[in-house]
């Protein structure tokens, strides 16, 4: 039998949690950010900026309700435009949270403990932003409930064979399960806040949310079982969600969309962009809240490695897309690839290659993976790159389809940008509120990482 491979210590940079922390100190440090820390001017300013951006969403949605989707740049043949690009981008960002909280839990990767709460919150907020776009894109958002199957006087039902209906089920299940998983994870930490808070109103609010959790061993046993079951179900769920999103494209007959590589390539892209966003948010948060001893270099290094690995899968996807176009011997597929590389939107294609394939190659170097500033810049480039990827997929395939007589061009309007940046405002607004009122790091899982938390075997019988 093969011996298990012992990995050298040098592959890790630093510990998962800095030495010198005790059970009490991690609780007080993470809980203290919520309970004791004064509201800083920086936080208030950030919240205000995010709130300002959020107004762009409210204004553009209102104008959309009044005038209809004509205010956007969409047309025939490019009927999808920003709404679908942003939908896919946001939902992809969400996937890293579930990967960190569920898949890494099943794989017993304890370094996830310090970042899973934050990443899951990011998932939840990103899916909220994502869900808005298809609803706004329907043109009559007040009739969005037509997407759900319910008995009605029109005697009509959704087409259950349509990927767009699958999307409704996939995204709403994803949002529900993510929220439940997140809340279950929060219960013990809410109890910690209830027990350490000195202010009666805080004790009441956190106490109600903690539902009377009393850290009982009998409860923990069921709790751990339920967490594992939820993780086991969230894992195939997260893969299925972006698979279904890719079906929106792949099940159609449009050149460039009708390929079997779409599901795995979309899932990898989702995780890639999600880790990009986790890094974008976490590097500043870790700095401003002085959490370098809990979210250590080891975390940044590991996240950078996942980004690099998924980036390489995405690169493989790009190569295969081009190859399929060539190998299909289909004139429309071949033209699509050629048009993507040399047509009117070619600059977007090359920028995307630069952002998504060339830029992450820097992450091979350890000194870059452990340099927060450079890593942060790379993560933003990855976010932009993944947005461009969706732009290229949606627009280049649609604007040149089978008949040259129906070709067209797409250019977004100010309202497209207002809606998009508005959702970024909503997302940041929710993140700012989250770090202020809830523990952004899972305290009880952090305790489990400490040497003081280990039971020393053998216990005498």
């Amino acid at each position, binding site marked *: 039998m093969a011996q298990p491979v012992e990995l050298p210590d040098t592959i890790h940079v630093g510990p998962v949690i800095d030495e010198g922390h005790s059970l*009490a100190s991690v609780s007080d440090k993470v809980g203290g950010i919520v309970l004791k820390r004064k509201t800083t001017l920086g936080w208030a300013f950030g919240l205000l900026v995010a709130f300002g951006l959020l107004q762009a969403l409210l204004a553009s949605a209102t104008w959309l309700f009044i005038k209809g989707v004509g205010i956007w740049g969409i047309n025939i043949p490019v009927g999808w435009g920003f709404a679908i690009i942003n939908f896919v981008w946001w939902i992809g960002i969400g996937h890293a949270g579930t990967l960190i909280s569920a898949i890494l839990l099943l794989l017993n990767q304890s370094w996830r403990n310090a970042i899973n709460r934050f990443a899951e919150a990011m998932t939840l907020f990103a899916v909220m932003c994502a869900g808005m776009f298809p609803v706004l894109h329907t043109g009559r958002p007040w009739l969005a409930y037509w997407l759900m199957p319910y008995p009605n006087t029109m005697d009509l039902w959704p087409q259950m064979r349509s990927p767009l209906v699958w999307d409704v089920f996939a995204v709403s299940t994803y949002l529900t*399960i993510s929220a439940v998983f997140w809340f279950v994870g929060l219960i013990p930490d809410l109890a*910690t806040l209830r027990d350490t808070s000195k202010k009666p109103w805080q004790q009441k609010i956190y106490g109600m949310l903690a539902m009377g959790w009393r850290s009982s061993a*009998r409860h923990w046993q069921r709790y751990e079982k339920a967490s594992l079951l*939820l993780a086991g179900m969230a894992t195939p769920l997260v893969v299925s969600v972006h698979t279904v999103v890719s079906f929106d494209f792949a099940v159609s007959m449009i050149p460039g969309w009708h390929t079997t590589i779409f599901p795995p390539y979309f899932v990898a892209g989702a995780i890639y962009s999600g880790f990009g966003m986790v890094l974008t948010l976490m590097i500043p948060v870790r700095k401003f809240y002085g959490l370098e001893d809990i979210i250590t270099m080891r975390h940044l290094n590991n996240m950078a490695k996942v980004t690099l690995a998924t980036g390489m899968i995405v690169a493989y996807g790009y190569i295969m897309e081009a190859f399929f176009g060539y190998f299909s011997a289909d004139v429309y597929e071949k033209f699509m690839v050629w048009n993507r590389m040399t047509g009117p939107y070619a600059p977007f294609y090359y920028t995307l290659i630069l952002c998504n394939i060339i830029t992450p190659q820097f992450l091979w170097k350890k000194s870059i993976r452990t340099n927060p500033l450079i890593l942060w810049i790379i993560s933003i480039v990855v976010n932009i790159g993944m947005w461009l990827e969706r732009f290229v997929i949606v627009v280049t395939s649609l604007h040149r389809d089978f008949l040259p007589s129906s070709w067209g061009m797409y250019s977004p309007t100010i309202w497209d940008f207002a809606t998009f940046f508005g959702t970024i405002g909503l997302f940041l607004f929710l993140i700012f509120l989250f770090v202020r009122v809830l523990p952004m790091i899972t305290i009880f899982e952090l305790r489990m990482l400490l040497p003081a938390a280990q039971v020393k075997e053998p216990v005498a019988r």
Partner: protein
Amino acid sequence: MSHGTLEAVHPLYGMMAEFETPTQLVEAARKVRDAGFRKFDAYTPYPIHELDDAMDLHDNRISLFTLIGGIVGGCAGFGLCSWVEAVALPLNIGGRPLISVPMFIPITFELTILFGGLTAAIGMILLNGLPLPYHPVFNVEKFANASRSKFFICIESDDPKFDPEGTANFLESLGAEEISEVGR
């Protein structure tokens, strides 16, 4: 270390001992169980898997419930698709089968996960008897540390082997930092 005020708290919910380290707690929990106590509980700031063995905790009902929830969800998903496409709104598209199994899989799968996941979470909360606004253990002032840094064992007065004086002495012999009585 003093329990001079015994009999002061009536009626008594139980006797609580505080421990400094998880190793002491697991050892103590095992001894409490070996001494024949059944109505007792340990309170820890994070899950300690060694306790499952020491306290003989093997409640697997939640897995069963989740399985049932998942199966119900799967049947609901497939049933919904089949009913809508074959009964409620049958559309003959080029003579293709009305019950087109592969196309029904995504919704079947999503509802399996949705029902299974909700059963796991709600099942955990209900089996744990939550939400519970009041519980006697919170009457002990130091118990606030159970969710922060300290480890507790509480032997409940309902246990047939419980007697206030003897149980307190027993807990003290296990190396408890402090013994307190828990009022109801």
